[in-house]
């Protein structure tokens, strides 16, 4: 019971974020006249298709134009192009919400579907794989490294890591990825330069898995390399602050073994702020993985952005991606919020 309220409050904030993003999407589409342009293009395409069909029955070009003009009117009313965009706004929002994301212009899903829903959703697991793997590895390195460094405050290693963490903020993740490709894939030919599987992909499950791992290695290393410095550093600082609290002194006075003091009286207490730190880092990880997917041609949603932006942009795909990314982000955030509420008894009652 006591868990329920704070969970609800925190989840509602994230749902709020989600709806605000949705609103921003729809408003931007409407205010800039972009949705009108998309609709007009859709109608134009439909008319072109119908023209070829009608050409079978109608020979007279004038009559053809008349029929088509009438048809255009019908379609414009049907799609709501005759009414201002804000009347269409709720319907657009609802469509996006129900994942009715329209059709792609030129992009296709792996099995050839042109439904945006198919194109985007089949890439969600790929993105999640990269994002969560690197996120979890970063978190683990951060916790282990951070709590170790907290015991070596002021040592050269401590100073090195804090310097490294500061430098990390100045390095574009994706550029590190490019350097890796340049050196490890192109020059030394140790690891594949991109994609998720070799061509042709291995069919046996085990070789297929190892093939995936070898392809995932560079993107994951890239993502971890740029984020683990700040992660270690912030966890070190959190741990150090907690190690100076009175209850830790008492735990030592109790004659508890040092390992137990570290685990239950420092790290366990540091867990909630560490999770908060991870939550702040998450937004950065999402951005990082979009760019790193692009660099490594990882068939996830981030790479899809790049492909959708290239050449003739695929508007529907871009709208859908932004929406699904937000959805994914909000879901991971809610998981972390739940974790936080479980880790920190203080929020369970004060909310």
């Amino acid at each position: 019971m006591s868990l329920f309220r704070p969970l609800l409050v925190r989840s509602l904030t994230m749902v709020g974020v989600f709806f605000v993003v949705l609103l921003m999407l729809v408003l931007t589409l409407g205010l800039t006249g972009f949705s009108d342009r998309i609709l007009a293009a859709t109608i134009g395409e439909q008319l072109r298709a119908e023209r070829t069909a009608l050409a079978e029955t109608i020979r007279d070009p004038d009559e053809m134009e008349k029929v088509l003009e009438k048809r255009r009117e019908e379609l414009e009313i049907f799609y709501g192009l005759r009414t201002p965009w804000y009347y269409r706004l709720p319907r657009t929002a609802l469509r996006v919400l129900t994942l009715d994301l329209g059709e792609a212009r030129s992009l296709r899903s792996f099995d050839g579907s042109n439904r945006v829903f198919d194109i985007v959703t089949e890439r969600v697991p790929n993105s999640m794989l990269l994002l969560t793997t690197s996120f979890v590895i970063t978190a683990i390195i951060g916790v282990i490294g951070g709590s170790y460094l907290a015991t070596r405050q002021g040592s050269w290693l401590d100073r090195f890591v804090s310097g490294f963490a500061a430098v990390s903020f100045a390095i574009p993740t994706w550029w590190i990825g490019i350097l890796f490709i340049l050196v490890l894939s192109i020059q030394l030919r140790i690891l594949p330069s991109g994609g998720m599987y070799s061509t042709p992909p291995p069919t046996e499950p085990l070789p297929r898995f190892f093939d995936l791992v070898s392809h995932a290695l560079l993107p994951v290393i890239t993502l971890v390399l740029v984020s683990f410095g700040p992660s270690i550093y912030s966890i070190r600082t959190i741990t150090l602050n907690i190690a100076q609290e009175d209850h830790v002194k008492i735990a030592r006075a109790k004659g508890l073994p040092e390992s137990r003091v570290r685990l239950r009286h420092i790290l366990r207490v540091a867990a909630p702020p560490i999770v908060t730190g991870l939550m702040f880092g998450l937004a950065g990880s999402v951005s990082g993985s979009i760019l790193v997917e692009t660099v490594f041609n990882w068939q996830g949603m981030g790479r899809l952005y790049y492909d959708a932006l290239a050449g003739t942009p695929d508007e529907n795909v871009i709208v859908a991606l932004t929406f699904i990314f937000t959805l994914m982000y909000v879901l991971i955030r809610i998981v972390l919020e739940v974790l936080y509420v479980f880790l920190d008894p203080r929020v369970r009652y004060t909310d």
Partner: protein
Amino acid sequence: MSRANALRVLLRSGPGFGGVSLLCLLILVALYVLLVFPLDFGESQWSNPVVWVDNPKAVPPAWTNTLRREARPPHRIFEGAEPHTVQMARSGPVHSWRFPLTYASSHPPTFLAVTLADVKYEERPPLVLISLKRPDGKQLRIYRHAVRGPREGESGPFLRYGQTPLRVQLSTDEATVTAVQNFLADEFDLRLDGAQIGGRVDRFLFGVPTGDSEAAFAPLTGDYEIIVQAAMREEGDSVGKIRFVVGGAVFGLMGTDSLGRDLARGLLFGVPVALFIGVIAALLSTAIGTSLGIASGYLGGRADITIQRISDIVANVPVLPLLIFMLFIVGPSLWMIIFILVIFGWPGLTIQIRSMVLHLRTNQLVEAIQSLGASRRRVMFRHILPQITPYVFAQLIFGAPAAILSEAGLSFLGLGDPSIPTWGQILEAGFRTGGIYLGYWWWIVPPGLCIVLTALTFMLLGLGIEPVVNPRLRRSPP
């Protein structure tokens, strides 16, 4: 702390000193660029292929030759306006230009190209001839061009190649191929067909047959001479400009990209742009973040709640997808990028400033001053703001690298402002055209290094300034 004292503390710390020196360097470079480069460099030069047409494509920097055992041919450009000599022939004056070319490389040039501009004649068009004199004494005419005659209804004097100069890529020019074919047949008794010569003209012109096989040529090093002659018909006829390019396999300080653009120039232009993006975006988002934070903490009540709700939500939004989306919708322009970065850049600061203001307001000193009858406003500006300012200043500095990195990332996705080249866009071009898979490191590494260096400058400055603004840090912990 006095300003001079603050500066001394800043300069004495390692990061502070590094940051200040790097920033000075960057500012100097930016000033140089602003003085030397046209402001519309992006449109008039960078994305204008005509400017770069005579450059070799995707070649490494010239200094890489010092690292290589076999030097690659450098890029040579010969230009002439006034003729070197004028001789009178029966048909009229002959203007000639002689360009000496010492060739020491074991590779042939990558291409040969000639450009004519501003040809002027009174009645009958001049004839342009180009010959190559080789170190072995052999000489051949590689190009012959009759300037276009008067059109119907046109009256003299006639101007040709004024707006668009005539540029001929000799390496693939049919007449040149035929000339080389004849030359090989006459001099070396080699009979090759056009397909064997086309595109590889340079190897034959700058080489001698090895005898191994018909088309096997070894480079011939030594002193060459390029002789350009223009046979005029009248006294006043002239060729305004002549330009002969011997394409190199290395170029300039930073090499070229696949369009032949001089990367050094692109990288230089990126300096003021990056500084501009970083400073303006950080300045605006800090200004908004600070004023909203102060308003929130100072006004309290409904305004506070509203500002907090909004900043909570904006702070929790996954920024990059929305940045991509909005830039895509409104179209890529540098101002738009800065505007959007600012829109998403303020909430963190607002939340922090608010809690600082709240904390300071309940501070005993401030309460005491208030109880002595100081107005809220006076308390705000005299007692709260001065305590926040140093912190805001540090945040301002830390905000710059974030903006620079974001712009680079967006440019890398293809959302950069096409009229203003940035380092991110150079990288994007290198990536999209496959430069990285071809190992064109000079196209990939320097722009990234520039981004890192600039972002690092601000990070170091920030680290150096932290102890200045935060006295607690001035002494390191025991």
